[in-house]
């Protein structure tokens, strides 16, 4: 169930690139899916290569192709997207759409038009995602002035929407693997998700994802797929971990709101590629000296994992996602983690339960 992670810096060995005029096309195998990323802008290229892309896997959906095309346009009027009169607004505001780190970044309007999803990110650009046809276009106004993390997130968001018709659904959670068993840590920003992730990582768990995980519902089985990104940490989280707090030179890079680092730079265990989910943790930070686990009903776990209602674009996809999440909570043990001050001792609480499953 697990495989070798391809380090982002060795991606070129796993991918192909073609260049036509100013258009660069990178072709990846993402968990067996043929993913093509086209862009004319070097600054936009980093969004595709900033995270790990995985290969050497049996094709789950051979022949299927996903295409993401990002390019620069001078302003909103130059975006070659028109809406029909039947377009409907799904969301307008600043709520997080994908992963907690987007919370403050997504001042956006999301519309649905004939099966396409249009995401108008005010002041930055427009994404048009046609998941049924497997393609997404992004038009950005000044990408060279945008933080790399922003472009990375737009890329990941577009990709996660393209994956939904393939029965691969994004979850607001981090994910790790231990001996083929997956642990999801779900919840909103500030609940202790990344702190729990780091505590388990340093004890030998393997990294799958931070902030957003991918759940692949194969019908007969279910897998959590790696969807790696740089790990974002708040200063109060850094303070718990000497390998982050005391390292010199510091491995931490300043992001937009938090600092970030690559997991493999700090923790020697390589990342995992996929695993079977066995446990879901819903942390909440407490001031108790010791952490404890409280079994959570499957119904409440399902409710906590379900996406925001306003983002349901398609009834068939919504049904499939609901059934996938239902199966996930049926197969997994769910716990509320009352996360105390003994952060570094978390593995002694979690690991025996993981190994028991």
């Amino acid at each position, binding site marked *: 169930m697990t495989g070798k992670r391809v380090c982002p810096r060795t991606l070129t060995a796993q991918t192909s690139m073609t260049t036509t005029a100013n258009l660069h096309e990178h072709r990846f195998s993402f968990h067996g899916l043929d993913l093509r990323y086209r862009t004319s802008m070097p600054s936009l290229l980093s969004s595709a290569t900033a995270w790990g892309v995985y290969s050497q896997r049996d094709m789950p959906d051979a022949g299927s192709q996903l295409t993401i095309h990002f390019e620069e346009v001078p302003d909103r009027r130059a975006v070659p997207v028109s809406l029909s009169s039947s377009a409907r607004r799904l969301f307008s505001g600043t709520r997080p759409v994908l992963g907690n780190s987007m919370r403050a970044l997504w001042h956006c309007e999301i519309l649905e038009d004939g099966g396409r999803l249009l995401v108008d990110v005010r002041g930055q650009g427009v994404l048009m995602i046609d998941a049924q046809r497997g393609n997404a276009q992004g038009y950005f106004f000044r990408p060279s002035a945008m933080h790399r993390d922003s472009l990375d997130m737009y890329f990941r968001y577009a990709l996660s929407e393209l994956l939904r018709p393939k029965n691969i659904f994004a979850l607001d959670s981090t994910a790790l693997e231990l001996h083929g068993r997956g642990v999801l840590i779900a919840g909103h920003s500030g609940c202790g998700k990344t702190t729990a992730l780091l505590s388990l990582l340093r004890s030998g768990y393997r990294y799958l994802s931070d902030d957003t995980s991918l759940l692949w519902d194969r019908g007969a089985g279910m897998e959590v797929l790696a969807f790696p990104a740089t790990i974002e940490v708040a200063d109060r989280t850094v303070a718990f971990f000497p390998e982050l707090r005391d390292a010199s030179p510091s491995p931490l890079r300043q992001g937009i709101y938090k600092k970030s680092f690559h997991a493999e730079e700090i923790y020697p265990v390589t990342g995992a590629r996929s695993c079977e989910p066995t446990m879901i943790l819903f942390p909440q930070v407490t001031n108790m000296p010791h952490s404890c686990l409280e079994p959570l009903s499957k119904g409440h776990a399902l409710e906590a994992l379900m996406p925001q*209602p306003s983002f349901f674009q398609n009834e068939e996809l919504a049904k499939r996602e*609901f059934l996938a999440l239902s199966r996930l909570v049926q197969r997994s043990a769910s716990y509320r983690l009352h996360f105390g001050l003994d952060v570094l001792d978390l593995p002694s609480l979690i690991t025996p339960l993981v190994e028991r499953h």
Partner: protein
Amino acid sequence: MWCGSRLTDQSASWPQPFSVPDADTDCPEKSVPPTQEPDAAHWGKMMRLMPARNPLVQGVPMEGDTILFDLRTGRLHRLNSLGTAIWEQCTGSATLHEIHRAICARTGLSSDRAHDGVVSFISQWSHEGLLSSDTV
């Protein structure tokens, strides 16, 4: 978004006429007093309804309860064991009267309790669009 057990407040949410017996219902444990004639007529008509689950509502069993997911709104509803038993009967081929009898037999509840539960749940689901509109 999360709706808890409907049983706890069903007596408060349901008007009195439906908590009285009805001669038309043919229930062995119930009978309608003659003084209830106007309500009984309405009641009898209602008990012949054959509620059907809205196909845009997906349900999954979960630890004895049922989680309903409304595909149109993204809202979740949790049904307790009685709600689950009633929901399973809403196939569009059983009248409320037949559902009531089935619930009596399946749950062991008294006829009055089962009756109130059936009527309360059906009313609530109808109001929330969880049942096909042409069946209730």
